[in-house]
């Protein structure tokens, strides 16, 4: 497969994608680095000169920084845990013999097609509104006081909304993986007298390893940058300010580009730390 000619052809065919992504990464990154060392207020004087590491120090010491990192990690971790666990459960369920399997799959996949802005708006207003939301009606039906979801239980609420959106993705990938499991293996284990939970632990779960890795990798990529769900629901209030959102506020709401850029650099560092760990897991589990 590999002659000198095909190797140079390969390099050439790789080039557009690599060059574009490299540009997409480096150009803005360089600019962000540049701004991060400046006092830069577009609406209040623009470029006010170099300030060294002042932006970095300010961002790091601002009371919002560490909570925002924590919020980010909680949301990503929470959504991952929920979607993977429920996804495995649903995948196993959907793999059982039943009537109307195709239709159920259509129902389950649906949230994946819903744009985050819509899902956030619908959940916020029609379900989680403390006065008119469906959940409030449900609570009242049982004589309980409706919960003010997005202020009293803001973080769990957002995790719930986002999980709802990503559960279909996890389920579908895990389902495909389960379907590829050789049923003879399970039958052999059953013949050997392994009870259901052991068959799951020793055969099904290991078989799903790669699929789970893929789900975690892809979802993390998207979850680190969730935006619309927070923008629409809480606007970053009630402890739902992720690092991304904090930076967004610095740049767009306070129009402090220098400070926001320093935050951006932190976010990039955080993303790289997460990426590093992910790649270590993935590298093991994914013969890419």
């Amino acid at each position, binding site marked *: *497969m*590999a*002659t*000198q*000619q095909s190797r140079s052809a390969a390099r050439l065919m790789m080039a557009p994608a690599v060059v574009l992504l490299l540009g997409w990464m480096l150009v803005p990154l360089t600019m962000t680095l540049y701004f991060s060392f400046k006092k830069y207020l577009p609406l209040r004087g623009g470029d006010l000169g170099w300030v060294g590491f002042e932006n970095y120090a300010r961002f790091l010491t601002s009371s919002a920084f560490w909570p925002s990192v924590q919020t980010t990690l909680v949301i990503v971790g929470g959504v991952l845990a929920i979607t993977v666990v429920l996804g495995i459960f649903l995948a196993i369920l959907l793999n059982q013999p039943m009537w109307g399997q195709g239709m159920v799959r259509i129902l389950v996949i649906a949230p994946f097609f819903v744009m985050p802005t819509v899902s956030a708006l619908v959940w916020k207003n029609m379900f989680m509104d403390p006065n008119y939301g469906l959940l409030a009606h449900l609570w009242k039906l049982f004589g309980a006081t409706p919960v003010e979801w997005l202020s009293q239980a803001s973080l769990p609420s957002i995790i719930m909304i986002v999980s709802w959106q990503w559960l279909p993705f996890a389920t579908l990938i895990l389902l495909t993986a389960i379907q590829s499991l050789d049923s003879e293996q399970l039958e052999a284990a059953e013949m050997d007298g392994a009870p259901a939970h052991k068959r799951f632990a020793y055969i099904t779960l290991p078989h799903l390893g790669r699929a789970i890795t893929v789900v975690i990798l892809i979802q993390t990529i998207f979850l680190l940058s969730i935006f619309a769900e927070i923008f629409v629901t809480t606007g970053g209030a009630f402890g739902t300010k992720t690092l991304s959102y904090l930076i967004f506020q610095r740049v767009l709401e306070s129009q402090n580009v220098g400070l926001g850029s320093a935050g951006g650099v932190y976010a990039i560092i955080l993303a790289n730390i997460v990426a590093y760990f992910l790649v270590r897991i993935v590298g093991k589990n994914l013969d890419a």
Partner: protein
Amino acid sequence: MGRITLDKVSKSFGDVEVIPPLDLTIEDGEFTVFVGPSGCGKSTLLRLIAGLEDITSGQIRIDSEDATNVPPAKRGLAMVFQSYALYPHMSVRKNIAFPMKMAGIDQAEQDKRIDAAAKALNLTDYLDRRPGQLSGGQRQRVAIGRAIVREPAAFLFDEPLSNLDAALRVGMRLEISELHERLKTTMIYVTHDQVEAMTMADKIVVLQAGVIEQVGSPLELYERPCNKFVAGFIGSPKMNFIEGKEAANLGATTIGIRPEHISISTTEGQWKGTVGVAEHLGSDTFLYIHADVSPNETMTVRVDGEFSARHGDTVYLTPRAERIHKFGADGLRIE
């Protein structure tokens, strides 16, 4: 025309030298078979000739022109792969037409050649099917059809029959041999099956670990194998090897005698033994014998027709003296 010359050709994958420098000439019109155990580098050698891999050093000439750096598409060779490598999304007709389309041959000529190939290969009724709808043997024929229509300088076959069942294999073997008789084009055929090699080849190249052990016609290899490896590899059932005193008496480290060159008797003979297993095929009888001269390995004897013997019977073996092969300590043939 299709004379292929390999001049000190070698191939390494990374640090691993799969084929040490080797010289080989394949004459125009010759049916050459590369044979050797699995993993010995047959496919690699074929792919070097095809241009699908770069050679590490040396030179490949096709019709005395240097082809070393010519891409596969321009070498004028056609290849039939073990997996057939048909284009699954194209009909049989389109599959066969593909190389002609690439060569820019006009439509009328294409149709003519497709029809001729289809007739020769019994594919006329299947031209509009997809490869997925064909049997293994039919797929094989399509692959051959795709190779012949472009009228290549040489055909390269990489174990083309190994995915077929035994009965089909014999049939296809004959078809390929006949194709060669008809076209008289150079063919290089890779196989690990020495029966295929013996039955089809004008010239056999026996390979082991990337090294050419012997080149010659099937009968040359059968009658005068140049070393123990070739002697053991060519011929079926395998040659019996005997070491020790019996060999030393003849001035060799090892002597070899083919199963069909041993006569057997229940009363008298040179070597005494007991029957382990007897296989009665009607036409021949194969006897696997624990002989005193070969304590570690059972000896195989082939007898024409029926020979009644059962497990545990005592028998006597006599080799035909002029058919004994002698090998030295280095494994090379001693004249």
